[in-house]
């Protein structure tokens, strides 16, 4: 955490402590002073237990659990042959250079935000899930009680299974919902819609009738307006 008074090297100390305990840890400190640690799902439980209980770390609180679906990271979604008649026209943009925006290893990454109240420090754990098997990760409910609902939410929205969770049910979506809406391949307008049908006299479910509308005219990356640091880059071409 970057402090206004420039105590940004606090993160440095935490990095050193983690490295001395786990020499092979892939821990890094961002330019903003936030410490992140990339873990494998196998080591997560042990590490979490130590981080919570060990008096040197003492992360008493698990503030947040979330996931990121890296399916579309750095990719253009506007490469299309037709334009919609209802929204902005779509422009074709050159597909990104993969070296500029490297895709993380797996598709899903579970992100934990820990907070130590006694030491006033934050730590982010990032667990990339392997792509060759279903997304399963050990549950942290036995270590932090707050993990319960956070993990249910991630399961609901991303379809990531938490092994050992006592009550892994959907939490935010409708009863009987199918699919995991926050995955990048789930459409923004959803797949089913609900309405009252006067003929049958009840509420019915049917496939969505909304045509997807483009609200963002164009996704830009490496905007020419911000160039200057990277003279080799050209402005994205718009056809």
């Amino acid at each position, binding site marked *: 955490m*970057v402090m*206004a008074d420039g105590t940004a090297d606090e993160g440095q100390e935490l990095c050193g402590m983690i490295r001395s305990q786990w020499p092979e840890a892939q821990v890094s400190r961002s330019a903003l002073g936030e410490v992140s640690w990339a873990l494998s799902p196998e080591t997560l439980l042990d590490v979490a237990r130590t981080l919570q209980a060990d008096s040197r770390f003492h992360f008493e609180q698990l503030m947040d659990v*979330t996931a990121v679906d890296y399916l579309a990271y750095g990719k253009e979604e506007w490469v299309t042959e037709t334009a919609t008649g209802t929204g902005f026209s779509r422009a074709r943009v050159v597909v990104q250079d993969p070296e500029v925006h490297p895709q993380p290893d797996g598709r899903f990454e579970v992100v934990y935000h820990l907070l130590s109240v006694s030491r006033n420090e934050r730590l982010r754990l990032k667990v990339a899930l392997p792509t060759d098997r279903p997304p399963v990760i050990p549950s942290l409910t036995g270590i932090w009680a707050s993990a319960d609902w956070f993990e249910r939410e991630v399961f609901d929205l991303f379809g990531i299974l938490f092994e050992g969770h006592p009550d892994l049910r959907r939490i*935010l979506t409708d009863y009987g919902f199918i699919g995991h809406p926050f995955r990048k391949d789930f459409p923004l307008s959803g797949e089913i819609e609900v309405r009252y049908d006067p003929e049958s006299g009840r509420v019915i479910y049917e496939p969505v009738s909304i045509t997807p509308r483009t609200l963002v*005219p164009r996704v830009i990356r490496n905007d020419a307006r911000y160039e200057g640091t990277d003279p080799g880059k050209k402005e994205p071409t718009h056809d």
Partner: protein
Amino acid sequence: MTEIQSYTMNFGPQHPAAHGVLRLVLEMDGEVIRKVDPHIGLLHRATEKLAESKPFNQSIGYMDRLDYVSMMVNEHAYVLAIERLLGIEIPIRARYIRVLFDELTRITNHLLWLGSHALDIGAMSVFLYAFREREDIMDMYEAVSGARLHATYYRPGGVHADLPDRMPQHAPSRWRSKKEQGERNRNRGGSLIDFIRDFTGRLPGRIDEFENLLTDNRIWKQRTVGIGVVSPERALQLGFSGPMLRGSGIAWDLRRTQPYEVYPDLEFDIPIGREGDCYDRYLVRIEEMRQSNRIVSQCLDWLVAHPGPVILDDYKIAPPPRTVMKHDMEALIHHFKLFTEGYTVPAGETYAVVEHPKGEFGIYLVSDGANKPYRLKIRAAGFAHLAALDEMARGHMIPDLVAIIGTQDIVFGEIDR
């Protein structure tokens, strides 16, 4: 004689004490609660997914609609996250204005909490008095942003506009006499700052009035003392933050421990509770209102003495002023590009937190370098608090459950997102 079996009861989602759309499935043993299973998500709007499909600035309005009783503080976390990734420093006056409105928002939030909490427990009059004060803060919102609730006032790079020099006045109306209209406009003769100053002078007395009604009230104490007790260890385990954590006796306030904006330069105290019950949390929030009032008057003193810009002078991120746009082609193009395409944010991730009236409100933002967020995660304080409802309510009776829902300061906009 037949033995009484435990039975299941449905509470809400259409229940006046459910604070919105909370559905509880209660397992009861007589009138004693054995288990609470909250069913949430009835207000789920997928704000995080919607934000992934539009430029950064177009999602500020969604933030207001998360916790719809403390609008500007939600925006604050979001714009902080963007500013951190962009690596920009905002003008000092904008920082003071943000803190000023954060604290006014904290007062409105606590006023609404106090009114509805008391109403749930059976004290009708507090609700009316609390809303009278809240009305003035809504007028401040309106004066500064044009909207009484969903302000969209904070922008990456500062705030939308400076504080107005004239406070809007009540227009003549056939329903009101001249005298009554004059009375309503009594403190609106000057600028917004004068109006807020008048409010800060009045508020401590009003809080005393609330306390007169409640603090030593026998019924109030019977309904809150010893109800929903959370030990400090459990509060940490359950991910509590804000007044819920402080009520359990842990002195933790992000404004002090991980300060942002100008909080290090301001004087305020952090109240903490001792027992961790509903009554302590009530006392903590009442004191927080007084402290917020202190911060507001410090901000006003500073703002009067230090005029200056309130938004970054960078047309890539903040729109150019109207007057400039009228004659400068370049500014017009900037304006058009900003409001259609927005701006690109460097690839990276950040977790920006603010001390929300309800606890820790965080925005985890992942950018892949585009002009819209790649992933936005909203960490709502109420979500963790509601998750602990089961633990807090077990062994209590249904009327106590209502008191616990009230003390958690639940707002479904932020829990369901």
